[in-house]
């Protein structure tokens, strides 16, 4: 009996020891549920083959991503070792101590030079221009456009368009041209519509969509260093940009008041719209004939310029951060060292991930790999982003509250909506003592 008990205890100890050592050789990365996360899983499988360290990319739908991440972070949970977090989380996550400070790592590996400047500025650094870094640019992304080449290149359509508008039908170079093209193709009787834009107000869909117009119209959301908003968010340029976005909404398919990336790709795959706004990360599905029957006749263009010639796009994408409460921080840092290697970044791009590595982005090999990579490369040097302050979620909800009724229902005017938003934001910054710093 004693021998049996001793054997049992020894077996239990051995299994515990084994499980502990196995645990140390495992890493969990948390991200949203979308194609790039699958590409990342493929990439980290190669890391496992090289090092024996198992890396799992755990995902959750985009709608829950922010809530689930911060619930875990606020609970100081160690379920995840790393998170590929949204750029606007930087302030909240760094100030609360959820992210490990990667400034030393950044300096050591000269990542300010290695990665594209915009990705470093928006995915990694907080506060702005502080030289403090909290994540490694992982998935570069921005908003671009897809369009139906076959509709655009139809001789009858081209002739009719030129007769009506006085210039050739081609991918738009300005927002004014885009409005004309949307109006031209908007034919509800034929179940054909002009344009698909973001309108979902449950997270940052609508705001990102409107940002594309605001930034290209020469506008800004505010002064990110002084928190000044009055006269900036409600500037004349922004009013015009919002009016344009509202006008474009009039050329969307019916029931387009709660749409984000899924619906906007469907607008192309289901022959609904002539043009569709979406993040570049969702374009692989549009060149894949299995997911898009119109793959051969789908073209792409960068966000057009505004009336003053400014041309910017809303930044998407994420950086990868190490969670402060992870029990495997050392292993996570080793993984990051592998992740930033040139060959890893090249492989990441080959798999479909949008690398932020400047060297890879500039290579001909990358730019010619897909019909939209060149547009992506150009866009990544012309991107701007939303506030990254800890109270960004409040700012986001306030913006949604003010602009959604105007964009989708024409309630009030663009000026009224933006004036009210300026007051909301000012009150929020006052609440958090931003003007006393």
């Amino acid at each position, binding site marked *: 009996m004693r021998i049996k008990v001793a054997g049992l205890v020894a077996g239990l100890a051995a299994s515990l020891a084994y499980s502990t050592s196995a645990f140390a050789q495992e890493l969990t990365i948390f991200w949203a549920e979308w194609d790039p996360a699958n590409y990342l899983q493929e990439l980290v499988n190669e890391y496992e083959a090289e090092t024996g360290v198992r890396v799992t990319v755990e995902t959750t739908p985009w709608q829950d991503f*922010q*809530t689930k991440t*911060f*619930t875990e*972070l*606020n609970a100081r949970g160690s379920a995840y070792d790393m998170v590929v977090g949204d750029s606007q989380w930087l302030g*909240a996550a760094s*100030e*609360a*101590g959820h992210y490990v400070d990667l400034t030393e790592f950044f300096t050591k590996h000269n990542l300010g030079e290695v990665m594209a400047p915009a990705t470093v500025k928006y995915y990694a650094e907080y506060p702005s221009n502080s030289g403090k870094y909290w994540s490694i640019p992982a998935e570069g992304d921005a908003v671009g456009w897809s369009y139906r080449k076959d509709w655009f290149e139809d001789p009858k359509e081209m002739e009719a368009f030129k007769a009506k508008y006085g210039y050739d039908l081609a991918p738009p170079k300005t927002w004014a041209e885009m409005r004309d093209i949307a109006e031209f193709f908007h034919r*509800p009787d034929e*179940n054909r519509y002009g344009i698909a834009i973001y*309108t*979902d*107000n*449950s*997270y940052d869909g609508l705001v990102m969509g409107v940002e594309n117009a605001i930034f290209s119209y020469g506008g800004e959301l505010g002064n990110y260093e002084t928190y000044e908003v009055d006269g900036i968010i409600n500037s004349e340029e922004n009013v015009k940009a919002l009016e344009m976005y509202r006008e474009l909404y009039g050329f969307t*398919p*019916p*029931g*387009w*008041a*709660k749409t984000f990336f899924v619906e906007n790709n469907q607008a192309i795959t289901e022959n*609904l719209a002539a043009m569709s706004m979406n993040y570049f990360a969702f374009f692989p599905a549009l060149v894949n004939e299995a997911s898009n029957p119109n793959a051969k006749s789908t073209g792409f263009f960068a966000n057009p310029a505004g009336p003053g010639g400014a041309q910017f796009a809303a930044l998407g994408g994420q950086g990868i951060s190490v969670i402060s409460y992870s029990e495997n921080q050392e292993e996570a840092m080793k993984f990051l060292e592998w992740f930033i290697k040139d060959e890893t970044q090249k492989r990441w791009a080959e798999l479909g991930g949008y690398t932020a590595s400047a060297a890879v982005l500039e290579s001909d090999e990358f730019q010619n790999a897909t019909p939209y990579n060149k547009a992506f490369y150009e866009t990544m040097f012309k991107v701007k982003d939303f506030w990254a302050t*800890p*109270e960004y*979620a*409040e700012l*986001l*909800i306030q913006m949604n*509250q003010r602009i*959604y*009724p105007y964009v*989708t*229902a024409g*309630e009030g005017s663009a000026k009224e909506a933006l004036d009210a938003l300026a007051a909301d934001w000012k009150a929020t910054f006052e609440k958090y003592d931003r003007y006393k710093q």
Partner: protein
Amino acid sequence: MATLAMTTLDPQSRAARRGWSDLTIRNAFIIPTIVFLIVFNIFPLLYSLGYSFTDFRASTNAPANFVGLANYRALLNDPFIWSNFAITAKYVIVSVTGQVVVGFGVAMLLNRTIPFKGLITTLLLLPMMLSMAVVGLFWKLLYDPSFGIINYALGLGRFEWLSDPDMALYAVAITDIWMWSPFVMLLSLAGLSAVPKHLYEAAAIDRAGTFYTFFRITLPLVAPILMIAIIFRTMEAFKTFDLAFILTSQPNAELISIRLYKMAFQEWQTGMSSALAYIMLIMVVGITNIYVKYLNKVKER
């Protein structure tokens, strides 16, 4: 006597042979339940009440500072919050009224001898057995202006149920009515089947009309159980979140529970959202009390 028999231990039972008293067995059943309730209900309730008087934000490492009634003041002075309450009130009235009318109407139709009555009743109960999220996604497709069957069946062309700011709330309420009318129907059926048949026979002998019979016999006798259904559905409708969240983004359909969710889990205003949750709790308790008082009056008649 019966109670005594219930609590006396059978001398042949295993518990008796082990020397367990009635009290031990009672405690073995009750204490875990009480502990569970305290840990998972009462403690969080009191803890969040404490938070409602602070500026605590769960997303930061900053300590919670006592701010007194500032959160309550801020909420009650926020026009958006009042708008959310007004939307919720409108939703509750439309949704509960619809459920009572449809549910009671169907129960009246089923309260007679018809073929396949059991099967029909079972089929009618199916909607409330489904998950709210599934129902939301399912009805989103039904409402779709391009290929939804509702517009096709009603000949409404491309009518936008969920994108129209004036219609979105009604669209959510219609879905809720479809889902929960069977619940009212079930309770009403129970009430109707309990109405003594001799009352109808007496009414028939007195040549009472259908209208008179309904308002003087059926409705008064079913009213108490109908009131219970109304209490349950009002409480549930007041807390509706998932259906509205899935179906629409319209601010005109932003119920108070959606605002609470955003405040608590998107903005991470823990103190403020705790205060809002308590305001909601007080309102639900107040409304329920009014109903219960009315229910007692109905019972007294």
